């Protein structure tokens, strides 16, 4: 099953993904318990590719990637939002 992860070299920690994920009650995006408090995605809660909400509001190109392939999903590719 495909999953998402944050590329910390590209992420600006704006937390739009966190806000959106919380708004739809998935809460898969969380703030890690580590000194930098970076954003992470809990693969057990994330329902990608069923849900692509965080991808639609992320402003940092390349910062959310498909964990298995390493493919950038920001900006969102057409298959992530076109039905």
């Amino acid at each position, binding site marked *: 099953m495909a999953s998402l992860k944050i590329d910390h070299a590209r992420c*600006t920690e*704006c937390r*739009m993904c966190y*806000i959106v994920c919380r708004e739809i009650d998935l809460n898969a995006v969380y703030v890690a318990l580590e000194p930098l408090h970076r954003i992470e995605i809990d693969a057990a809660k994330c329902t990608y590719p069923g849900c692509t909400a965080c991808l639609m*509001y*992320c*402003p*940092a190109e390349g910062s959310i990637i498909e964990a298995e392939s390493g493919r950038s999903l920001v*900006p969102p590719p057409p298959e992530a939002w076109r039905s």
Partner: protein
Amino acid sequence: MHPILEEFCDKWVWPTMPGAPGAAFRLKLTREHCLKGWEIALERTLAEIEQDLANNDENWKREKALRGYAAEGVAMSIKQMSGQLLSVDIADQERYIDLQRMRARQIWDECKHSKLHADVLLGKGWVKNERELMDIAAANTQPLPAYFGLSMMFAHIHPLARAAQNYYQEAIACLGIMATLDRVADPLVRHEHLSQRDEELMHFMEGKFQIDFLCTTPQTQQPVEEALGYLLHQVGGIR
């Protein structure tokens, strides 16, 4: 459509969360109103850049950095954003707390932007340190209406009007940055803009998110339409 605007829309405007309840409203507003304003704003910016580059001197870089420092300096950021934080009534805070978070975040961003403008002025040798800017009027006054001006204090502005401002105005900021990066080679000026690129886009995304999720009824769509009309017609002079 200008290729820069087309790229911006393809990357950031058209991608839409399936099922987002206010998305149809946002896309309609975009097609019927925003695109025209964005196109005009982009053309104006490009013309201004071409004129600056044709001048064969660097004074425009100094003027823009001073103007940017005035609009985004620390004191201005606190003033403008604290006013906007207060525009969400206590009773509305449960519903619109993200709008307040959006503004709180923007104070930080603006303060960082001011440092980038100072970087240009320092890097070019136009000031020796940031303190000198306190004595330069151009670095401390700005004529911008509405968005960063007095009307931010109007208590009757609906919280969602701010989302419309973010969506429409910050797109113009993004387009201006894209235009500058497309035409200007000076590494300091590029630094001044590159470092703002993701942040301005974040502000745009905040507006996109708020409209997509909260503007789902005529009552919540009306303040967005009104704010957009004000920005297009009164501020932008677009008919």
